[in-house]
């Protein structure tokens, strides 16, 4: 394994344990970074230790202790460390199994609702994902300095306001878990834009870690299923820089292994009963991959999802399914009731239905409105092509 891979593999696990024992994310981050830097220097020379995680945690803790000795100001925070130091545990490199896996505590801290959503996302990518500040800034198209301030502020707030490093009690778990899953899915959706940082892969990694940590939560399994079912079509989704619609995608490019993993997870989620919004979305994603598509069932599941989320965007998707079942005018009737004028896909979906209904002039207007709101070049090209086709016919 290359050191970079070691870093990616272990960063979250190492950092979480350090936050647990040092009680401060900033301090833990500095210590972990030092330990990885020492590993970069030593491992190629001396060979990788038998227990890399244990080695990294011990080394980082020793470094943190050194640092704290130098900065006596922080003495308060290190009661625990001081005790360990006295006990002489410094030299020993315990088994990774002896260090508690505290990634779950860390992710609940990072996704605490007292932090702004953008801070939750950035912090989760930094601490659990091990992305650098620059990478996160690049992914969210903000200057590195802005992202750095956002992260620093969030870490200060966690420390100063006393945001707990803990898995929430059962009565709060559903709400808090929903917040964690929302962050992961937001990262995944940001990744769809085809940015320079592979956020989709990052979100899937986070999703996988969550399924290891919370294997009995249906929605955790369902979210990973949903992401895998979407991501399996990654290679087929763009051709020559242009978005390829689902029905026109080359199915040979779909990742069969990911699809089968996704379906397996979906079944496990469904077997737990009482499917939540991610399970319903994953079921819909799976139905979309079948040929011919079962629009009846798709429309019914969207209806369920509207009930669960109250989201007009879900209603927009239901309109598309209704149009397949009952014709474009029926779909347009559903769309007419929606307040989504700011949403680009509302206009592109409406344009498509208007075109099918033979209302070309209105379709042209809708395509142009979608173009105004388009966010990527690929979207723009795709819309321009559709608009051009409309003019020809």
């Amino acid at each position, binding site marked *: 394994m290359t050191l970079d891979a070691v870093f990616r593999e272990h960063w979250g696990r190492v950092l979480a344990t350090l936050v647990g024992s040092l009680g401060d994310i900033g301090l833990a981050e500095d210590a972990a970074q030092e330990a990885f830097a020492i590993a970069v220097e030593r491992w190629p020379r001396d060979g990788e230790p038998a227990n890399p995680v244990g080695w990294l945690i011990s080394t980082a803790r020793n470094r943190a202790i050194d640092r704290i000795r130098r900065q006596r100001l922080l003495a308060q925070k290190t009661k625990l460390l001081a005790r360990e130091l006295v006990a002489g545990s410094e030299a020993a490199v315990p088994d990774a199994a002896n260090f508690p896996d505290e990634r779950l505590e860390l992710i609940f801290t990072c996704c605490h609702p007292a*932090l702004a959503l953008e801070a939750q996302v950035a912090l989760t990518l930094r601490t659990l994902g091990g992305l650098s500040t620059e990478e996160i800034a690049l992914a969210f198209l903000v200057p590195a300095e802005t992202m750095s301030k956002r992260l620093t502020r969030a870490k200060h707030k966690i420390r100063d306001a*006393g945001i707990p490093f803990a898995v929430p009690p059962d009565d709060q778990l559903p709400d808090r878990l929903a917040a964690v899953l929302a962050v992961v899915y937001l990262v995944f959706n940001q990744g769809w834009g085809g940015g320079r940082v592979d956020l989709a892969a990052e979100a899937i990694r986070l999703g996988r870690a969550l399924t290891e940590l919370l294997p009995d939560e249906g929605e955790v399994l369902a979210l990973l299923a949903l992401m895998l079912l979407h991501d399996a079509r990654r290679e087929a989704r763009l051709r020559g820089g242009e978005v390829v619609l689902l029905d026109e995608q080359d199915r040979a490019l779909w990742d069969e292994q990911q699809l089968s993993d996704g379906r397996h997870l979906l079944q496990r989620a469904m077997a737990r009963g009482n499917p939540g919004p991610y399970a319903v979305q994953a079921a819909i994603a799976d139905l979309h991959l079948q040929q011919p598509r079962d629009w009846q069932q798709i429309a019914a599941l969207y209806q369920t999802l509207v009930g669960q989320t109250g989201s007009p965007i879900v209603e927009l998707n239901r309109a598309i399914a209704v149009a397949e079942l009952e014709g474009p005018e029926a779909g347009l009737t559903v769309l007419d009731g929606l307040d989504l004028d700011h949403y680009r896909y509302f206009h592109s979906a409406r344009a498509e239905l208007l075109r099918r209904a033979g209302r070309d002039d209105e379709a042209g207007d809708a395509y142009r409105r979608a173009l105004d709101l388009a966010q990527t070049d690929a979207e723009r090209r795709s819309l321009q092509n559709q608009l051009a086709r409309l003019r020809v016919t």
Partner: protein
Amino acid sequence: MQYALLAYGHQNTRDAARPMDSATAAVLARPYVTGWARLHADESATTVGSGDAGTLLTDGPFIDTKEYLAGLIVIEADNLDGALAVARELQETRTGGAIEVRPIFEAQFRDA
């Protein structure tokens, strides 16, 4: 009469961890000062407001010029979750407004 004195600080001097100025400390030590608290900077604040379905959390201080500062409550809690639970309970008893939850850096209270 009892009075609450609300001290406002400037952005540039909001590092709560700095030691208290000795002249300030001398005033605070006078017998008529029955309590004081130094707060962490406003970036550590969380605001509990009212939403469509119960209370609503926002990151950051409460900012709305139409509202006025109506009261001050000091509580003890294990962590922010404990403090927010009390703030939520209080906010549910009120109509409108909001409660800003700010950690106290250091404080001293005596019987009035």
